[in-house]
């Protein structure tokens, strides 16, 4: 570990300058070509292919440009991407059918425990990882058979045009319709994040959020009921709140940080409030019985290298857990990312263990929350 710390500044000193000069284009292929020297003895070299799941659209395009192409160039392993809305149902189906056509899938944290117990994943070979990668990636994000692939923040965003002086700074402000009038938006499909926002608005401290006891849930629903008339539209698709903020149908809403990032970089007048954000990790897993497990291990090791992790972040807007990537990211980007320690410090981090835990009646806490959410929203 100390070795990697030693190496890092030397390498990065040169690179960092280049990156800063190169601004947004810094992580594209020319920069990488210059860096190939460092990978002269690439230990991940292999052959064949690896079948990797991703979400499609600009996400997949970004990953392909920033991660897959460098990976193929460095190792000779081709990346075949497969695209679906969500990977979990397909993984579960493949597992049940006994024919695994994929190597790598991303699963949301709350689904991980069930799938892990069903034995769907292969343990991750951390011995392939660089020292730097291991050092930069917090241990809590490196599980035995899964590794956090990226963090998603759900944060408060507002239209700067609606509040040119001073916008809302917390969920309490979000709830304060007198001080900050204007149409609001919240995510319709999921309970947890709205409940947490409501509790924060009610004055519950970040550290006291988990577990979500029935008392707290009741308190949150009361709070939400009070705000219900002011929510003009409960959004359902990730791009919606951004679109509606731009169209002035919303003055403020909760949004996915990565989606907001893409809009802000294109000049959208949207401001993010990290205070009270909700951070969730999605996990990358290698599927047991997949066609190219060895290559999958190599891709994991590769994409968690700080340099590549920074590429991932720029390609997708959602940063992976390796904090060393901060050294490779353009400075103007860092304040907008949840990997920024300053931002993550203000966020509530999802308690995946509690959410996936079973209640006495056999339902998981997530199921229970969703059921109450359904009852509340349809009432």
């Amino acid at each position, binding site marked *: 570990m100390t070795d990697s710390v030693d190496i890092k500044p030397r390498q990065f000193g040169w690179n960092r300058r280049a990156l800063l000069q190169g601004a947004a284009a810094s992580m594209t292929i020319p920069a990488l070509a210059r860096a190939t020297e460092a990978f002269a003895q690439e230990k991940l070299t292999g052959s064949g292919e690896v079948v990797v799941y991703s979400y499609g659209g600009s996400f997949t395009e970004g990953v392909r440009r920033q991660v897959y192409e460098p990976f193929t160039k460095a190792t000779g392993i081709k990346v075949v991407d497969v695209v679906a809305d969500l990977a979990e149902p397909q993984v579960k189906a493949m597992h049940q059918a006994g024919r695994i056509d994929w190597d790598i899938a991303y699963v949301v944290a709350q689904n991980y425990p069930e799938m892990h117990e069903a034995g769907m994943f292969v343990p991750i070979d951390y011995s392939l990882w660089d020292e730097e990668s291991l050092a930069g990636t917090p241990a809590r994000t490196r599980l035995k058979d899964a590794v956090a692939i990226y963090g998603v923040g759900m944060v408060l965003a507002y239209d700067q045009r609606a509040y040119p002086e001073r916008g809302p700074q917390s969920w309490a402000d979000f709830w304060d319709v007198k001080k900050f009038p204007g149409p609001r938006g919240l995510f319709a*499909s999921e309970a947890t994040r709205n409940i947490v926002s409501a509790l924060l608005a009610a004055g519950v401290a970040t550290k006291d959020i988990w577990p979500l006891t029935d008392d707290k849930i009741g308190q949150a629903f009361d709070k939400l009921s009070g705000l219900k008339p002011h929510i003009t539209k409960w959004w359902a698709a990730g791009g919606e709140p951004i679109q509606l903020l731009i169209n002035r*149908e919303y003055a403020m809403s909760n949004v996915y940080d990565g989606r907001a990032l893409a809009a802000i970089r294109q000049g959208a007048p949207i401001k993010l409030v990290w205070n009270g954000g909700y951070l969730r990790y999605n996990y990358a897993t290698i599927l047991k019985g997949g066609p190219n497990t060895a290559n999958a291990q190599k891709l994991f090791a590769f994409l968690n290298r700080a340099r590549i992790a920074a590429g991932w972040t720029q390609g997708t807007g959602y940063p992976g857990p390796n904090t060393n990537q901060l050294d490779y990211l353009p400075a103007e980007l860092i304040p907008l990312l949840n990997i920024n320690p300053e931002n993550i410090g203000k966020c509530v981090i999802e308690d995946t263990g509690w959410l996936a835990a079973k209640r006495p009646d056999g339902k998981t806490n997530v199921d229970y929350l969703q059921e109450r959410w*359904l009852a509340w929203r349809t009432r």
Partner: protein
Amino acid sequence: MAYTISSTEIQKTTRALQPARPTPWAWLMLPGSIFLAVLFVVPLGWLLLLSFGAPDWTIAHFVRIAQNPAYIGVLRTTLQISCVVTALTFVLSYPIAYALTTGGTKLRTFLLIAVVLPFFTSVLARTFAWVVLLGRNGVINEILLQLGWVSQPVALLYNRIGVIAGMTHVVMPLMILPMLTVMSSIDQRLLRAARANGASPLAAFLTVFLPLSLPGLIAGILLVFINCLGFYITPALLGGVSDVTITMEISAQVVGQLNWNFGAALSTVLLVAVMAVLWLGSRFFPIEQLLGFSDDKIGLDKTARRQMGTQWLMRIGSAANALDRWLPSMGGRGIPIFASFLAVLLLLPVVIVAYLSFSASSYFVFPVPGYSLQNYERYFSDPLWLRATVTSIRIALMATTMATMLGAMLAFGLSRGRIRGRGAMIALVLSPIIMPTVVVAVATYFVLVQVGLQGTEFGLALGHAVHAIPYVVVIVVANLRDLNPTYERAARSLGAGPLATFRTIIAPLVMPALIVAAFLAFLISFDDVVYVLFLGIGRIATLPMRMWEGITQDINPTIAAVATLQMVFATIVIFVNTLLGRRKAQS
């Protein structure tokens, strides 16, 4: 001498009284039945087992549904929305279908385009078009405010109104096309006969045209109602927080929370509820007969009931006749004018989508800040988009071929086979579209994976065919009623073998219905995003799939450009069809 009953009539009567025995036509059901059995019944059975917790048997999932009023509430909401949309669609579609049947070539082409194009607009682009029209700062609110009719913007979107408008807009082809095929086969001279016998235009319509168009109408209502149950993207995008449909919930359970047993239990409840609704419906309306299944199986009570329906319309018709002198006369132009007005309404969102596709902004902004072809450039310069387009067309063609052939054979068998348990067979054929697509898709995956067809275009086409067969069957059956068996007997007597009879007599007579059915099957395959997610195992990128990614991952008007290109293509197809039809009529 002319007043004695002829011997053929006696034969006809006695034959009708004999117990039904399957005819050779029943054999036609075989291929389609096997197809559905393998690709749908097996998965359906698996699903049922799953809902009972197989292999650990339990009814806990059903208990959970029964205990939480929210699930029943969601089911009720779904049925409510479906009923309202079906009713509204019917009211709006009927005049359009009527004008399509009776209008000139120009009017027909215009109406057909207006009806079909909304189907080709991407759901997100369309949603934004609705925001432009119905939003707080939308066109309608602007007009209302300017007129001073309201002092504050009216909430037209993100509530039930928005859901209903958005859904109605898309399902109209499903109502209009079956109506159209049946209406075109109605003898216009019957209307003249009614007029000559003293019926005003309105009364003639109510007492003659309307009852004769019933099979198409029932087919349309059935298809639209069932189709509405499966909506979950439009309600999520246009609805309010409480507009949760059962399909949204099932989808969340299956895809989001991986609770397949519970999702299966919810689907089972949905299936049972819909079957119950249809069964109840058939108590009051003889759906089977109205759909056009031949008369000879009708029991006396059903004939009586049908008679009652006719009587009822007759009473309304005769009442309308009395009002005739007070009704304003539009000189027969009322319906075409009204239909054209509706068509313009249907086209408004479509036109907005086309307009947005030329936007220079990278977001949906109205009005566009500047014009640019960047969205089209992005489409044409991206091999992924182009490849997806070709893939979609290829899969849709495969699915259309299978669904049209198997569905048409099933329709003939069902209509003429005189098999026992026809009602059950019809229910089975309709089930693939009653069940939420996501559930059927997961189940079908397990069948395909047994033979290694997962992730292949053919496998996906098989799934689409299962989903399209019900549409084909309903449309063809509704049109078989007017296919007089005498023509076939005549052909047989003139020396045509069964195949030659089919080729020379049946096929040409059923062809219009088959074309419409094939067209719908194509649309259904071409529009799908759910089957492709499961059966494609991520390896097949179709056009709607790419557009769907555009919705979940990005928001940019490229999808508006893709939608516009699709609409241009559809328009060209309709135009060419019209021109060919005209040339054929001339030669």
